[in-house]
């Protein structure tokens, strides 16, 4: 059997995002933030027959709530982004195998949602993700374990321990976060000028 192709970055752990596609399913769960909601709309447009079996979970999606509601999903739940995990857990408690999940939005939302889905036992093969919005990343400091949301520069300063951290492509599915590693461990104080993260 073929081995999976390496990702474009060469890091097998780097999540692969692609446009969301409908798959055979018993039920669907669509999750998005404000930036990702347009990807859900595109999916709903392409496969309206999916919507009567679909639960939509929107995290701080603002003006996009009404647009998705107009697509008549079986159920639509709104949550503040901070309350994503408990809202997702409540939906997953009733879920059965046959569920296909579509997540769209920032790296942070995707990472958090996928980590929760995997923890609930859903295999990765039932989850698709599409990146929309800023390239900001959810990062874990590998030294003090502090998670920092919406990191836009490399290196960045850890809000937990103050170290200057190099933004790696290495991603933890369990934590839903990229890894940040001390950039000046060998040469203390020699920290390169931060640059914007491109993707």
């Amino acid at each position, binding site marked *: 059997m073929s081995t999976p192709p390496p990702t474009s970055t060469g890091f097998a752990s780097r999540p692969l995002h692609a446009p969301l596609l409908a798959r055979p399913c018993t039920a669907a769960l669509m999750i998005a933030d404000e930036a990702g909601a347009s990807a859900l709309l595109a999916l709903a447009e392409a496969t309206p027959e999916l919507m009567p079996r679909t639960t939509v979970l929107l995290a701080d999606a603002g003006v996009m709530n009404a647009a998705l509601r107009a697509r008549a999903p079986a159920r639509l739940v709104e949550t503040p982004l901070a309350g994503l995990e408990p809202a997702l857990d409540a939906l997953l408690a009733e879920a059965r195998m046959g569920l296909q999940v579509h997540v769209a939005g920032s790296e942070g939302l995707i990472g958090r949602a996928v980590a929760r889905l995997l923890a609930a036992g859903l295999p990765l093969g*039932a989850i698709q993700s599409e990146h929309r919005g800023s390239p900001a990343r959810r990062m874990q400091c590998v030294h003090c374990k502090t998670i920092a949301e919406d990191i836009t520069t490399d290196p960045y300063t850890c809000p937990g321990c103050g170290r200057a951290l190099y933004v790696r492509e290495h991603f933890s599915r369990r934590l839903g976060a990229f890894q940040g590693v001390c950039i000046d461990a060998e040469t203390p104080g020699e920290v390169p000028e931060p640059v914007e993260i491109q993707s």
Partner: protein
Amino acid sequence: MQSLKLTRKEPLSPRITRFRFEHPEGAPLPIFAGGAHVMVQMQDGAVLRRNAYSLISDPADRSGYEIAVQREDQGRGGSRWMHEQAQPGMVMTIGAPVNLFALNLTAKRHLLIAGGVGITPFLAQVRDLGRIGAPYELHHAIRSAAEAVPLPDGARLHVSDQGSRMDLDAILSGQPLGTHLYVCGSDRMIRAVLDAARGLGWPADALHSEEFLAPAPGEPFAVHCARSHKTLTVGAHQSLLEALEAAGIDAPWLCRGGACGQCETDVIACDGTIDHHDHWLDPDEQAHKIMPCVSRFRGQLLTIDR
């Protein structure tokens, strides 16, 4: 391979017999994990047969290995030899356990579906699941009551000629998130279960199946082994792997049933058609590879890298 003594032979059903093997000096055998099989070697007259059988005994019980063999009168003769010739007291050559059908222990729950003699790997797996306290559900689908074998407590029996056919959609629809599905049985049954699951939205990474194929007979064919500089003929009831072994050509193997990938061989030239019978090669690999354990060739000459 190790020499083990056949210590017990008893029928489980009219066609299925259980065999127990122990170390000749009573030494403990290596532990295995449910789903593992062993290769049983049989000297059937001039023919050396090697058949894979799933272990059915408790994987933690090191006092012996047990297998269950269904007699296949239309088969190549291995199961018939076991039923007729193998007798308690005999010392036989048995391979070390190999597992191509392991439980995924990250699963929250295990759904085990067996057809006929495909129940065998599950008999060992439910012992492992019971020991770790993992929730599971075992279904055994058979055509008639004559195929029934003793089942673990809680297993559900479906007998199609008694009208209790397995309702696959109902079984597959109610499973909690995190359930993994395992199916073992005939090719047709495995396909039906996996197709139903995929259609209901089960992802491929929650689906597991095992089917051992017996090498299908066919017309004799000629093979040139480029590396060994030998040309040989594969007999009608011989597999390509067996022909290589008979010619003294070293060829790797593990399951001898088209499942494990160990005997994968590059095809250098193919003046004809390869009949791929394995579960291993992807369609795009079939043009330039062959699995000698189960696949055959029709045509003038096949040249392989052995």
